[in-house]
């Protein structure tokens, strides 16, 4: 999936192509401060919880929200530089946006929606409509060209919105939660289609999502945003293997702890220890999947080093498994089969013995 191996810290050198931005937006109590670079052809996903500032970042890139500080350069051209009172208006930026709820103009047909951009760029009406027809054809929507947005299905509207954004040949394509408005089944199809179009897109694409699956399928690089700042960035596989915040850990379904390593033993801030296979020293993260945890009614005779006595706090079904929420010296989540839950006669308040194999844990420097 990786087409360019852009390292996240190459921002020191000014890019002459692609995106090079430091986005600072101050808005009464909330401060967004992101360093964002991307090469042409790269797809970057801003991933984060609601209210993290992802959409603000997207709006700032589009010029809809002015920067307080920082700068924004695209293909070597400065689009915004508040320090020098420079600001290119949104209509003059080579930027295309697919909005979360698409914002297709309800009074225009699908064709005229797509033709709107070229028309605004001075393309004659007939020519603009011909181009729009071509885009709709590429999206497989030729037969829906005359339909008003109200008559389009969610997936069709999404493709029209994408065609509309691409029809102005942007050098930066922005997608705000491109799949959030779709139901689960449509999502699957649209995600695959979107991935194809993004792969074919030769300029920079930045998408915003709170769905890790969308981010990992669509993007070459993830930038995880929390509270207006970047908490982690890197290739999807790396982030899902080595999460650095609770938010990412819960997104990718891992138990995550922070502590200090002395050899194979990691002492957590709360005092509990975890034995790992990695030999490390200093501050580390330890992660393990909920499926790696084993629960016992009585104290097991096993030689497992990682043995704790924990209390069941709650249970909920998770796919075809039961996810058990355990509290005690090491709060953790465990995935069990329904049979195991019945056999252990688990219920909230019950205490159980919990073991974890060291080989199932993964420790890495913090």
């Amino acid at each position, binding site marked *: 999936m990786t087409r360019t191996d852009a390292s996240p810290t190459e921002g020191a050198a000014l890019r002459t192509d692609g995106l090079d931005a430091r986005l600072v937006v101050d808005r009464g109590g909330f401060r967004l401060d992101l360093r964002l670079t991307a090469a042409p052809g790269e797809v970057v996903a801003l991933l984060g919880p609601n209210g993290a500032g992802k959409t603000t970042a997207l709006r700032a890139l589009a010029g809809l929200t002015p920067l307080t500080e920082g700068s924004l350069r695209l293909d070597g051209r400065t689009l915004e530089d508040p320090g020098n009172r420079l600001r290119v208006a949104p*209509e003059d930026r080579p930027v*295309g946006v697919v909005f979360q709820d698409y914002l297709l103009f309800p009074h225009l047909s699908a064709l005229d929606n797509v033709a709107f951009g070229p028309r605004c760029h001075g393309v004659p009406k007939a020519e603009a409509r011909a181009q729009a027809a071509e885009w709709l054809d590429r999206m497989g929507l030729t037969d829906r060209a005359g339909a008003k947005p109200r008559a389009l299905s969610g997936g069709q509207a999404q493709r029209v919105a994408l065609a509309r954004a691409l029809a102005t040949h942007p050098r930066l394509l922005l997608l*705000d939660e491109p799949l959030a408005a779709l139901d689960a089944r449509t999502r699957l199809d649209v995600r695959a289609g979107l991935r194809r179009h993004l792969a074919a897109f030769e300029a920079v694409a930045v998408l915003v999502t*709170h769905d890790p699956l969308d981010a990992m399928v669509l993007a070459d690089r993830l930038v995880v945003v929390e509270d207006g700042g970047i908490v982690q960035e890197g290739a999807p596989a790396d982030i899902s293997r080595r999460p650095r915040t609770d938010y990412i850990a819960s997104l990718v379904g891992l138990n995550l702890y922070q502590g200090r390593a002395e050899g194979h033993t990691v002492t957590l801030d709360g005092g509990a220890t975890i034995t790992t296979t990695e030999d490390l020293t200093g501050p580390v993260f330890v992660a393990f999947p909920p499926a790696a945890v084993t629960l016992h009614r009585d104290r097991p005779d096993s030689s497992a080093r990682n043995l704790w006595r924990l209390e069941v*706090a709650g249970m909920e079904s998770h796919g075809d498994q039961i996810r058990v*929420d355990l509290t005690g010296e090491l709060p953790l989540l465990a995935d069990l089969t329904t049979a195991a839950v019945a056999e252990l006669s688990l219920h909230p308040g019950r205490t159980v013995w919990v073991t974890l194999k060291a080989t199932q844990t993964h420790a890495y420097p913090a």
Partner: protein
Amino acid sequence: MTERNAGPGQGSGAEAGAGPNSGAGPNPGAGPEGPTGPREVLSGGSKGRRPGTPRPGTRFRTARLRTPRLRAGVPLPLLLPALLGLAFLVLPLVALLVRAPWRSLPGQLTSVAVWQALRLSLITATAATAVALVLGVPLAWLLARARFPGRRLLRALVTLPLVLPPVVGGVALLLALGRNGIVGRWLDSAFGVTLPFTTAGVVVAEAFVAMPFLVISVEGTLRAADPRYEEAATTLGASRFTAFRRVTLPMVAPGVAAGAVLAWARALGEFGATITFAGNFPGRTQTMPLSVYLALQSDPAAAIALSLVLLAVSIAVLAGLRDRWMAAS
């Protein structure tokens, strides 16, 4: 994420895995349902369904059909004043129809004087509406979208003619645009234009009274319209004016049309400001309402005939608006 074996206070706080969790994006309200919406609705529905009601859908539909009918049990303290109010509003119109000189009506209506007044009324009301549209729609946009200090004050000033007695409006217009008015004097000396007691003066008086109706109506529609469509247009390369012209204006067209009809009806019935500012010259400034008033003193039958014409026009306007307003209420 349905909880199983759920006792009090035991939902696990962690939301792991790839399942799309919170669906609402950063734009609540505007966006369609989040991804978890349908699933939650489904599980909630099956849980909430009571055993005795197997088909909630059909039951709901029949219940909805019944609601428009007058239910038994309207409290008397409400019913009596309501009926009285209805009679109060309808009775004068009934009287107009009952006492109408139906036999002499054709002769009355084909008289030159009536047609002159009707023609003048239609022309001036339409012209006043055009003035209100050209000036009022941008003003409404300014009030709805632009941010500047004193906007509330400006809005209050715009609405003032709504509550101002029209006669006072006429006097004010005379002081502003009259031959010796603060602007009128200059208009007279520079361009030789005098407005009072001319047909153009009628248009001015009617526009003054009618425009606030249009502004308020259009401003309300603009406020309800999602400004993000304009943003979407600018990201496609449209200037703010192009975005307004090609996106916002078509989207608020129904509101503009409703406001225009409202303004037109108000202009058609205008009396106080017109007679004060433009006078009462047959063929030049004597509109329908003025000739009704005048006829009432000399020839009541003619006044009734003229009133019937205005009533017919009003009903036609209401019928034209029926879809828009009756449905909205």
